[in-house]
């Protein structure tokens, strides 16, 4: 399969489908996916490079939201609401995770008085 061809064809996937008009002219599915991808990668990079646990968690939130953007775009592309429904669930889960994360971070901070994730290295090898 020729992947490059697939990629080059992506910009042509316009979001105008049948009677539904294009939202922003010239902005295709590809652009949304690109934004989503960039967000995802940014989140990933942030996750890999930051030491602060809260920031790291925020980065994972970024990745989740990147998925959300892609979902919306796909939902629009397929002209169904499944994607949007999915986004709702993703948001909910993200919220639950956030709660968990904050609780955990509090717990950890109590122990070591730091938010640096790299201090937790007693087990290895």
């Amino acid at each position, binding site marked *: *399969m020729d*992947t490059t061809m697939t990629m080059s064809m992506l910009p042509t996937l316009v979001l105008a489908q049948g009677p539904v008009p294009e939202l922003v002219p010239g902005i295709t599915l590809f652009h949304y996916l690109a934004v989503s991808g960039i967000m995802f990668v940014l989140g*990933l990079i942030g*996750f*890999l*490079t930051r*030491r602060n646990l809260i920031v790291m968690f925020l980065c994972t939130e970024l990745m989740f939201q990147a998925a959300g953007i892609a979902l919306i775009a796909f939902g629009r592309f397929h002209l169904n609401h499944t994607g949007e429904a999915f986004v709702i669930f993703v948001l909910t889960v993200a919220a639950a995770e956030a709660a968990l994360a904050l609780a955990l971070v509090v717990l950890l901070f109590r122990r070591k008085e730091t938010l640096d*994730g*790299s201090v*937790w*290295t*007693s*087990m*290895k*090898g």
Partner: protein
Amino acid sequence: MMMDQMMSSLSPSFAPVWSLALSGGGGGGGEGGSALGVLASLKEVPLSAMVWLIPGLPLLGALLAGLCAVLKVRSKLPAWLMVLCLAGSFAVTFWMYQQVAATGGSTFAVVHLFDWINFNWAPGKAFVANFSLYVDPLTCLWMLFVTGLAACIALYASEYMSHDVGPGYCRFFFAFGLFVFSMACLVMGDNLLLLYLGWEGVGLCSYLLIGYFYQKPSAVAAAKKAFILNRIGDLGLALAIMLIFVKFGTIEYAKLWPMLTQYLQMAAAGQFDQIPTSVQLIAVLLTLAAFGKSAQLPLYVWLPDAMEGPTPVSALIHAATMVTAGVYLIARTLPLFQISVAPLAGLEGTWFGFVSQISALEIVAYGGGLTALLAATIGMAQFDIKRIMAYSTVSQLGFMFAGLGVLASYGAAFHVFTHAFFKATLFLACGAVMHGFAGQLDLRKLSGVMWMKGWLIVGLAMLVGCLNLAGVPFTAGYFSKDVILAEAFSVGHFRPLAWILLFTALLTAYYTFRVFFRVFVGPKHYEPGDELHAHDDHGHDHGHGDKHDHGHDAKGHDAKAHFHPHPPGWAINTVLALLAIASIAAAFAYPTYFVKGLVDTSTAQVAAGAAGHTHVGGATIFGYDPHKAMYYISGIVGAVGIITAFFLHYLGRRTAATSAADNLNLGALQRAAQNKWYVDEFYNFTIRLPLKVLSHIFHMLDKLVVDGLVNLAGLLPRAGGAGLRPSQSGVLHGYAVAMAAGIGVLGLVALLALR
């Protein structure tokens, strides 16, 4: 001791098998006869199953001896039982001989005992090697002197071993009986595999008996050496058996001879190039076997060392019987040798190409001749009288092989026959000396033994033996040696061999009488040997070889002062007298054609006769027929040898230690001969040592490379684990990065897989 329990428990189950019905033997003679007229004279005759007693009685004796050991018998009982059994065996043999003689020769009988190795190598095609006895004149000849001598020597040993009464005594007679049984299997087996059983069996008994004084390291080493060198020969025999079977489909003599007819015809017609190399190779392999068992070059080195065993053993096994097994083998399979006269074509280009230039019979002849010469030269330089006898045995065996090689199997067999008696006599006489003088065997430390009180019979027996060995005219040894020499001279292309043999005969006469003149006549003098403590009160259960590291010298000196030689008792004297008479009487076998009759009518000889002696005869010596001229020549040669010995070792000798011969300084030559031409050392450096080094290398390879690779394989996961452990850094970010990287790599892989 467990053997007899075993056997006693097993014998009921064997009973039906030992019902001893005469087997048909396959009627091989008849088939072959149609092809060749000569073979038609080979008839199978019925023979009473009684002959199984010939091997059976010695085995019984052995088992009884074993039983004695179990019952902790501390008397001479096992000896008497053994003598009885052996005498019975001899009686049966004699009866068997008469039966065979009555048929007028050229007959054979197969007596089936029970099936041994009997399997199908293909559906319906059997490999058969049964416990069956094959009786023909050759068998009779061999068994007569084997059982006869064994009975005599057992009697001798009953006295000789008397200091060892107890477990050792039982052990001795157990092995003794087992030996006679094995020898009987060897000689009477109706197939080559049973011969092989006897072949290895006598080897085992030889091993056990050489190592009889097992606490003496030299005896243990000698026993081991004998067994291993014999094994090399045995390998040849085993391979020969395989080759015979694959070529002819049988290893039973009765069926084998007819299969050879066609090849023998070719041989008779001189078309040796038509006979396949693989068939000709059989004889070469058999030669290897015979050389091993009969102590021929290059495998002779075990025999002199075998003298570590008790003297009766040396006399019976290592002089009279076992060592002649090689001669028997060749005499038995002579037809196979006759078709192997031509150079072994076809081996060129293989690893064994060098053999391709020589024929099997030439190997036999020259092997024998060279061994005879070499052993004689060594024998001349030795001081240990038993060893001299040992080398003389090797030398005389060489004569026999030379005889076989020049196709005078009658001469060889005759020499075996006479040699058995006179060499046994010689050994037993030496043994009596050894027994009486506490193990003293050095001819420089004994002198005038014959004139001491009670030693006359020993001396006379020794004289008879020496005369025979030296080939003094009209002795048995003279006749038998003459036949071989004459035959050698009469075959033109064996002329060098003939001269070698003649020269050896001269040396033989010399070294034989060297012993006689130094030890038995001359000034009376003796020094006891180093086995003094064996006569101490508490030392009786120790055996000869039981040396103490501590206190030996002091005790020795003390005892030496009181030492008196004890002359042999009635058993030894009787046996010596008997054997001396037998040695003399053996001479009558020549004019009466006793041996010749038996050999020439033996089946192998008849079969071989088919090939004809086309190339034999014709040559002359000094213009005379060698068969006649040799009477005079060898007589003169013998006399020259004796006279030389007389001048060098008797005339003017004042002390035991010195003689006129000491003035002859032959320098390095003498030293080398004394040291057995350094053959043992040569073998040690060229074979044993490299082998040892090789073994160590293999061991190292095994440990380091083979096992090392295994360990390496075991190490790999561990090394991998150790190498990968840092990847588990324990740092959250490290993990995250690694995961992301992993995903990236796998993504890349996916992309590549797509392309």
